[in-house]
């Protein structure tokens, strides 16, 4: 039993250690998020509450922007849904490695599954057979990322409260720059570029729609353009090829 506990702690620590680069990378985003909150209609504790219970960087950024733009709650929830849909791909990829765990473990790990934790946990699991590894490495990575996000959010909240003039400098450009850094590496084929262009142009054109619905409509059309181009390209190559021919 003692040996088992020891190895669990070791795994936990290893997961946290391997997440360190991601934690450093997330730090500026946490600070920017906290700062944006201070310039929005939200109070400081709302910002920390959001980090505590939502724990999804890009969705949090977007929500703060939409709150400032007086979007309705339902549209913000719908946008949260769309923005976070990518997590379905992550959990589907990791599912074979957690399927053997008791339900309470699966619920807990799901709550900690962010882009960064997925990247770290998947790299770890890939080297092992499904069902062979315990949950502690994943948990360690997730907890490290979670605590890190809370700390940087808090720092951002204090920072923004101490320097209220930041918003007039156009600090929300930091969010634009962040998103560009996420988008550009994903533009690996014409269909992604076309999908992004369609959604960007239409989102601009449809800005006047009530409750920011134009944004959701633009995303739908953008995804449609990407799908159409994928189908036109005919026989799909690469990752999805095997699934399709079955």
């Amino acid at each position, binding site marked *: 039993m003692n040996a088992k506990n020891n190895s669990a702690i070791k795994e936990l620590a290893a997961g946290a250690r391997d997440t360190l680069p991601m934690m450093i990378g997330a730090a500026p985003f946490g600070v920017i998020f906290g700062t944006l909150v201070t310039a929005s209609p939200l109070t400081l504790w709302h910002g920390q509450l959001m980090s505590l219970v939502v724990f*999804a960087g890009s969705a949090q950024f977007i929500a703060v922007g939409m709150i400032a733009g007086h979007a309705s709650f339902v549209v913000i929830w719908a946008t949260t849904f769309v923005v976070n849909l990518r997590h379905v791909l992550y959990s589907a990829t990791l599912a074979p490695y957690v399927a053997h765990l008791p339900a309470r473990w699966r619920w807990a790990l799901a709550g900690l599954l962010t882009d960064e934790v997925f990247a770290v946990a998947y790299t770890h699991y890939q080297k092992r057979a499904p069902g062979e590894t315990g949950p502690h490495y994943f948990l360690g990575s997730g907890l490290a990322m979670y605590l890190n996000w809370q700390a940087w959010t808090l720092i951002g909240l204090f920072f923004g409260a101490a320097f209220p003039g930041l918003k007039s400098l156009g600090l929300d450009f930091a969010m634009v720059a962040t998103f560009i850094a996420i988008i550009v590496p994903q533009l690996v084929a014409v269909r992604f570029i076309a999908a992004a262009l369609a959604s960007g142009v239409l989102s601009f054109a449809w800005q006047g729609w009530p409750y920011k619905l134009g944004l959701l409509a633009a995303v739908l059309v953008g995804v449609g353009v990407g799908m159409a181009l994928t189908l036109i390209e005919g026989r799909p190559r690469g990752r999805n090829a095997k699934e399709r021919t079955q």
Partner: protein
Amino acid sequence: MNYVILIFGMALVTYGIRAAVFVLGERLTFAPIVRTALGFVPVTVLTAIIVPMTVAPHGNGAELTWRNPQLVAAAVAIVVCAATRRALLTIAVSLAVFFVWQLVVLR
């Protein structure tokens, strides 16, 4: 109080998405076409959010001019990111351009 409802709603939506596959397990499978569609979600959502902020930063029509610091710095960010693929460098350089443009060039 109202914002607390908003925040918990967001939490519920996010947690539901993250937990669905882990908890339902084998019962939830995705058709290849759904996976393909999901693959386009991140780029389209993020682009839809930033284009209006960049092109029309004041919300009154397009400002397609070099005097729009958002637009200039966003263009720099795209170039830096395409050339280096380094997120933090992209953010640092474009933020620097953004502030220099506002405080020096447009003075």
